[in-house]
């Protein structure tokens, strides 16, 4: 067990920011040693259902550094949400099955821990934001109850200290009149406000990592922009690492430092965000960029990707993207490509780059 208590937390001793919370405005120099907050190594997860056994996640490796946002990007069914839930060991087992790999949170392998140990990480060291703000809050409990819960469990706060902390958290997420609204129920909030409540739950115990699974997909454009801004500010203030799961490149552009592109349960390309946008190497990444109607640069045409993504129950030899790839070679259908480093922080899984 890691012995981090809130009282000895150095960030509490920093000067107070405009929200009145004891976070130091230190951004990068956050009081922890170097090295990634989260390191996922060769993660494999399968699902067994009536349709058979499918590899939803098939050897995924990536890391998230302190103060950084890693975007995990892909189309629906590519396994990105499964990755998010497996990190927290929240996948229902069965049907899901952990087939191998390691999930190292500050060096500790979550996969090797028992349920009790993992639970002490959830909500305390790793916060979570789900896609649908309408269903991720419990409709029968008020906001105070739901925001206070992790504080009670992990920090043992009670009484007025607890109430104060809840209000502070809500204020941090810019919820107007938090003292009054804490007593309201989820159905009395708009979608954007609910997602802010979910955000304050995720932040409540000052976690080192936040996993955000499509946090703004259900929100309107202008509300989405507000929310992303808020997340970025909080990251700059606290140095929290964010694993952002999304299918939307405009979200990626606004939020991420680095991007991992997923296809059919594997990561096909990892690179810094500029590289992904300006110089993508994998044919899938290239095709995806060409298929998005770009409102900034008028190209006059769209190039769709033929066919549709494979189901996890389809077995394939070789590269999973081969059937849809415009530059496919014979070898791609026979053998899966290994990962190659094209540059620092730029890895690709494609025979073109071997």
């Amino acid at each position, binding site marked *: 067990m890691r012995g981090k208590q809130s009282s000895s937390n150095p960030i509490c001793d920093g000067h107070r920011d405009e929200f009145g919370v004891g976070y130091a405005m230190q951004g990068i120099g956050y009081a922890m040693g170097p090295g990634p907050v989260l390191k996922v190594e060769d993660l494999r997860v399968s699902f067994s259902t009536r349709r058979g056994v499918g590899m939803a996640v098939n050897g995924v490796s990536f890391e998230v550094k302190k103060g950084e946002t890693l975007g995990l990007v892909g189309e629906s069914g590519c396994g990105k949400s499964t990755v998010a839930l497996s990190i927290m060991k929240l996948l229902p087992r069965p049907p899901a099955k952990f087939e191998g790999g390691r999930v190292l949170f500050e060096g500790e392998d979550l996969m090797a821990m028992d349920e009790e140990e993992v639970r002490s990480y959830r909500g305390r060291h790793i916060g979570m934001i789900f896609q649908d703000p309408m269903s991720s809050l419990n409709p029968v409990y008020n906001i105070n109850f739901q925001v206070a819960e992790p504080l009670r469990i992990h920090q043992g706060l009670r009484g007025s200290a607890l109430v104060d902390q809840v209000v502070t958290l809500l204020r941090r997420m810019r919820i107007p009149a938090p003292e009054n609204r804490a007593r309201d129920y989820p159905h009395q909030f708009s979608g954007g406000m609910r997602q802010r409540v979910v955000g304050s739950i995720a932040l409540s115990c000052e976690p080192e990592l936040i996993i955000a699974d499509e946090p703004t997909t259900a929100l309107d454009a202008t509300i989405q922009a507000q929310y992303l801004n808020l997340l970025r500010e909080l990251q700059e203030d606290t140095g929290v690492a964010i694993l952002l799961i999304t299918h939307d490149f405009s979200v990626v552009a606004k939020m991420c430092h680095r991007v991992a592109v997923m296809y059919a349960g594997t990561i096909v390309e990892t690179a810094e965000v500029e590289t992904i946008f300006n110089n993508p190497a994998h044919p899938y990444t290239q095709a995806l960029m060409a298929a998005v109607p770009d409102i900034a640069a008028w190209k006059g045409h*769209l190039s*769709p990707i033929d*066919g549709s993504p494979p189901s996890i129950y389809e077995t394939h030899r070789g590269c999973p993207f081969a059937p849809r790839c415009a530059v496919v070679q014979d070898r791609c259908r026979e053998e899966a490509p290994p990962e190659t480093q094209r540059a620092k922080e730029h890895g690709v899984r494609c025979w073109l780059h071997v």
Partner: protein
Amino acid sequence: MAVSEGAIGLPRPQASRAQKALAFLRRAPHLPLLILVVYALVAVFGPWLASYDPTDIGDMNRHAPPMFVAGGSSAHVLGTDHLGRDVFSRLVYGARISLIIGVTATTMGAFLGTTLGLIAGYFGGWVGNLIMRVVDAMLAFPVLLLALVLAVTIGPSFATVILVLGILSWSGYARLVRGQVLTLRNKEFVLLAQIAGCSPWRIIVQHILPNVVSSIIVLATLQIPGVILAEASLSFLGAGIPPPNPSWGSMIAQGRTYVTTAWWTTLFPGVAIAGLVLSLNLLGDWLRDLWDPRIQGAHR
């Protein structure tokens, strides 16, 4: 062509209708299905199976024990009752009564309830409101009491029981169908049918009804056992199938007086009811999980 929109393949070929039906039955719970088939066969071929007339008091061999009990003989496999009638033969004929009442009364209720539910759901208005108020009242009321009063009033008979139980069991369907219609009528495909110029009648028949049918079948499967139990209760109270007809419920009522000495006249009819109702419930549960996990507790 200047713009490409990607090639597109055919979906995978699917199994034929007969193959699907076979696969469907293969996945059904075996034991309940088997038991139901046995009940149905017994109901249909009763006269060939039963060695006695169910109302035949024969040689007044009263309370003869079943053959597997000391003093029993193979002449009366499950013994005789207080009038010397063969229990097995009465059970066999009772199956027919239970099944006919269960199926016909349920069909009647389903038909009535579906019609009213469609009206209430699609057209709404004050008629719809009125229907739903009646449904609320019916769902809350002790139906058995009402059935009892009505059955006695009309005069206990086979037709009365069917009529009363049929009329009193429509409310569940009406509620179910109305709820589903309210959801369906705002679905895109119904809007598109309106846009295509379909009449309300065509929309109901072509677009709404087919999507409600599976839920109705599920509910009906779960309602048949309810009706069978209600008939047994009515007959037990003397307001159901009039004697000397062999209703399982009245067999229990008659056997009750002698249950300490001739337990078989009470035990076997009860087992027969429980077996039938249990299998129907299991089958209905399975169908519901398969077709309509949303229905819960629309039946009792």
